């Protein structure tokens, strides 16, 4: 068991993921712990390599960040299907759109900032509006990019990409799920954005856990509050769940790995039971997962909502752990948001 990743002083480790059987409800009997940490971008690299072996139409493009995106293995095994485009992301998006014409499935790789904001109109016109089968794969998203600072820490990308009609937006939670999502994208048709990150992070999803694009993944059953999380924040939510359990609050943890199309049914099913919601994301409070959930609630089932997200500010240099803390993305923040929202229900 790793203890270096986050100070667990407030949490009782033994209680994490305990199996609870109460007279009326049976809780999901999965224990979410980890023995290994790895970056989610390595999950992408591993998935891309496997996809390359399975499907000869899969091609990779990269803008001078092959090592950072973990695309070296694909490049080495399929040199003729790997395209180094240089530091020219706009060109890369256009090239990828063109490569789909004739049946290739391009996976573009660069940092999340340069995968979205830098090339928004190229994506909008040549990929989204033209409905091209391009998979935009984006690493180093969010504050956990760390020391490089705010210029590179994009916190607006989920919003930008989900606003594009027809764009699928996926934010997997750990190494294994990033690999599974990459593989799933090989069989998916249409434009898609896959967002992952830089830091070493707990691997807590079983490698063989099924992954279906657009289908939310309930991790822990609960009755008192629904916690919807994506990306690195899913692990934070699992940690928060243990702390909440100690306080007598049973949180339901749902991994919304696909922000778009959103699994509205799963959201409503959970919320009809718990009647209050916390959303968690490593993204601006404006435009991300929380916004999408709020829209569902507002339209179908209004209940109290709290959002754990970056509060309309840019990031800065620091270690991932420091930044998660400073920007309000720690398990403690989820715990207090849950307590607030449960109180508002009464």
């Amino acid at each position, binding site marked *: 068991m790793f203890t270096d990743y986050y100070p667990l002083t407030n949490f009782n480790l033994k209680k994490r993921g305990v199996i609870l059987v109460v007279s009326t409800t049976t809780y999901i009997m999965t224990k979410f712990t980890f023995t290994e940490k790895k970056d989610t971008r390595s999950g992408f690299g591993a998935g891309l390599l496997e996809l390359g072996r399975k499907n000869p139409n899969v091609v990779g493009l*990269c803008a*001078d960040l092959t090592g950072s995106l973990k695309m070296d293995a694909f490049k080495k095994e399929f040199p003729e299907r790997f395209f*180094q485009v240089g530091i*020219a992301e706009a060109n890369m998006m256009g090239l990828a759109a063109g490569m789909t014409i004739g049946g290739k499935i391009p996976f573009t790789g660069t940092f999340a900032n*340069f995968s979205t904001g830098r090339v928004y109109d190229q994506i909008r016109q040549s990929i989204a509006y033209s409905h091209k089968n391009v998979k935009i794969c984006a690493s180093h998203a969010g504050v956990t990019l760390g020391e*490089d*600072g705010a210029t590179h820490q994009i916190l607006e990308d989920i919003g930008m990409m989900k606003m594009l009609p027809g764009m699928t937006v996926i934010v997997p939670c750990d190494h294994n799920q990033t690999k599974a999502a990459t593989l799933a994208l090989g069989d998916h048709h249409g434009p898609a954005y896959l967002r992952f990150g830089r830091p070493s992070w707990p691997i807590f999803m079983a490698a063989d856990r099924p992954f279906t694009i657009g289908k939310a993944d309930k991790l822990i059953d609960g009755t008192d509050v629904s916690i919807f999380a994506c990306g690195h924040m899913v692990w934070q939510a699992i940690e928060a769940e243990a702390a909440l359990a100690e306080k007598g609050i049973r949180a339901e943890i749902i991994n919304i790995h696909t922000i778009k199309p959103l699994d509205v049914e799963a959201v409503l099913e959970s919320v009809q039971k718990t009647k209050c919601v916390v959303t968690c994301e490593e993204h601006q409070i404006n435009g991300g997962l929380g916004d999408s959930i709020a829209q569902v609630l507002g339209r179908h089932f209004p209940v109290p909502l709290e959002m754990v997200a970056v509060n309309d500010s*840019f990031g*800065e240099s620091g270690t991932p752990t420091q930044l998660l803390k400073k920007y309000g993305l720690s398990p403690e923040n989820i715990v207090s948001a849950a307590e607030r929202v449960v109180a508002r229900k009464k």
Partner: protein
Amino acid sequence: MSKPDLNHLQKLATQIRRDIVRMVHACQSGHPGGSLGCTEFFVALYFHVLRRNKEFTMDGTGEDIFFLSNGHISPVWYSTLARAGYFDTKELSTFRFLNTRLQGHPATHEGLPGIRVASGSLGQGLSVAIGAAQTKKLNKDNHLVFVLMGDGEQQEGQVWEAAMYAAHNKVDNLIATIDYNGQQIDGPVKEILDLKNLKAKWEAFGWEVLEFKGNNLAETIAGLEKAKSLTGKGKPIMNLMHTEMGFGVDFMMNSHKWHGVAPNDDELKKALAQLEETVGDY
């Protein structure tokens, strides 16, 4: 222009190289390669070429101003700014740590004196510099705008939009320089996306193009002085500055490997053994 005290400037350059290596070592991140390769350029610029006011102001009215487009080489800029008196050299120890003004990539957000626009996302600095140069003209401010870019950065399309614009609009109070080190992250520029005849390209875009050796102080100063003498003649100026990534630390040279890697304790020792403390460590 007074004669430069090359001996003193060389000492400063060596000290700044020490700062760079120590800064990236302390936070175990950042970009030593390009920083070390551009050290003479920064020393020449800030300690001899720029006509600059003592106090920093955002508008930079009545002084020459500088923009760094390849923001990842922030260590050399921060050290130079501190050594030039814009802030205490002690602050260099905060580079890339939480709550620092010395962000991983240059930013205005925390108010560090010397920085006028954020950079880090490549390809944007030349456009900003051209805009600032046009403002100087509108304001009848007879001073110059300098900007530094990377050679890999030349692959960004925006650079060439700016190139076309500056020549068309006769932005002749602008001196741009390219750190022509032949390296970028994934490897040699020639292998990643060859720039081919870069001089001919800039000339074809309507710029006055000069070349000089960037790891030689006298040549760098002479090159920048020559560039200055060519301003005001209807054309923007481009310096192709030939440098060696990692210059000054033998094991960091001749490769792209040290573009963005921090030395470990052992490597730090080896590097510092090659860089004499001259005007005092921070």
